[in-house]
């Protein structure tokens, strides 16, 4: 089965581990991922003022391209891309003024015929026809946990794992619609389906510091520390994320966290797709584990999960 998949810029360049593990896992589930022709950056940040209409053009172009390729939906894994695509799509459906103004920008785009590569101009208005799904959502609603369970080659043996949602998957809830923003279940259900034990901890939905790690590094260090510490003190052997930026803040900058907070012993950070791929039988050499600053290799063993020392 072919489905549209929007990796986004970061997965293509810096954080290929998320992209590669997604593709490998989907292969195990007999799902072929197709990227929309000529996709561009989504803009990373959903425009929050009523006047920044042009910020909606990029994500909606991507979605329109999916429609042109007869796709009903597109899946993403990066939380930032997911939020921007989903919110832009909702805005154009809900707000007639935005619909009118954005389509005025989009109408005269150059169209490339997928087969002949012939260029023409003029598009039908995009009306929000394509659904935007996070891979977690797709796995739950389209693939089904039943099917995942039936294909498991290496169930995780109850490894205690913390699900980290961060901001973008859940909020604002009226746009994202992935569950109660202070009591979500989606990620935990996924972890159970792959045989891990989700750890309940109160920071699963708190912010990791986001891009403040660049403009105000200390604030991000503290925010990430609180999340990691909470996960670890509640018994997690690893924390799983869906977002390359959360990964950057919590894994790549974990040495800085340890420097600032001496009581923190460290915690491996995984992409949820790495867990999925490995459980479905993918070899760990292709999971991009070499991109991790905090070694996570030990978690992927055929033997029972390692003891967790707190």
């Amino acid at each position, binding site marked *: 089965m072919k489905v549209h998949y929007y990796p*986004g*810029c*970061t997965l293509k*360049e*810096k*954080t290929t581990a998320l992209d590669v593990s997604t593709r490998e896992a989907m292969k195990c589930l007999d799902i072929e991922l197709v990227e929309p022709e000529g996709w561009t*950056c989504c*803009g*990373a*940040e959903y425009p*929050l*003022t*009523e*006047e*920044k209409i042009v*910020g909606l053009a990029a994500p909606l172009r991507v979605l329109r391209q999916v429609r042109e390729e007869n796709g009903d939906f597109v899946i993403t894994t*990066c939380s*930032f*891309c997911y939020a921007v695509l989903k919110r832009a799509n909702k805005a154009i459906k809900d707000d007639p003024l935005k619909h009118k103004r954005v389509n005025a920008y989009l109408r005269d785009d150059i169209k490339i015929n997928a087969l002949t590569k012939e260029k023409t101009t003029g598009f039908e208005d995009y009306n929000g026809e394509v659904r935007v799904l996070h891979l977690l959502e797709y796995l739950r609603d389209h693939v089904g946990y039943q099917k995942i369970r039936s294909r498991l080659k290496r169930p995780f043996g109850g490894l205690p794992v913390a699900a980290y949602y961060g*901001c973008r998957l*859940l*909020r*604002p*809830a009226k746009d994202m619609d992935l569950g109660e*923003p*202070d009591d979500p279940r989606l990620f935990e259900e996924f972890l159970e389906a792959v045989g891990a034990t989700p750890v309940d901890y109160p920071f699963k*939905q*708190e*912010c990791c*510091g*986001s*891009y*403040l*790690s*660049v*403009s*105000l590094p200390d*604030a991000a260090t503290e*925010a990430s520390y609180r999340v990691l510490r909470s996960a670890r003190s509640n018994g997690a052997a690893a924390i799983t994320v869906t977002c*390359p*930026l959360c*990964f*950057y803040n919590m894994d*790549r900058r974990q040495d800085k966290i340890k420097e600032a907070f001496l009581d923190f012993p460290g915690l491996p950070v995984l992409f949820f797709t790495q867990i999925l791929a490995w459980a479905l039988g993918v070899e760990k050499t292709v999971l991009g584990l070499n991109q991790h600053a905090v070694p996570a290799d030990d978690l992927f063993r055929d033997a029972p999960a390692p003891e967790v020392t707190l």
Partner: protein
Amino acid sequence: MRVKLKAGPEVRKFIERVEELSGENVYACYQCGRCSAGCPVASEMDVLPNQVIRLVQMGLAEDVLHSKTLFLCASCFTCQSRCPKGIDMARVMEAVRHLLDPKGADAFGPGEIPPDLANELPQQVMVALCRKFSK
């Protein structure tokens, strides 16, 4: 110094612009402070989120436009998700930031990112940060 509250068309226009740009009714806020209580970066802010909306309500444009807070909000929407009145503070922040011209010393542009860090950073960080806080 005692702050003189004004009520002229200029003050009204500032409040109206914030409301128009953000799509939020700033008068819906009854100052419970929950946005500040849950904000992950409030401790770094010179003006707390609830104070930002308070200053807008009072029409004290200068105070709010010159606060560092505008460039600290990471749009994590924690405030929005818990606001008892459903106000999206991140949008109010963005609206005020939009009205700030020139953007001032707290803005953050591509030039501020050291080249070696830029090599390492996920693309989304640079795009998002520069869209948000750029001069």
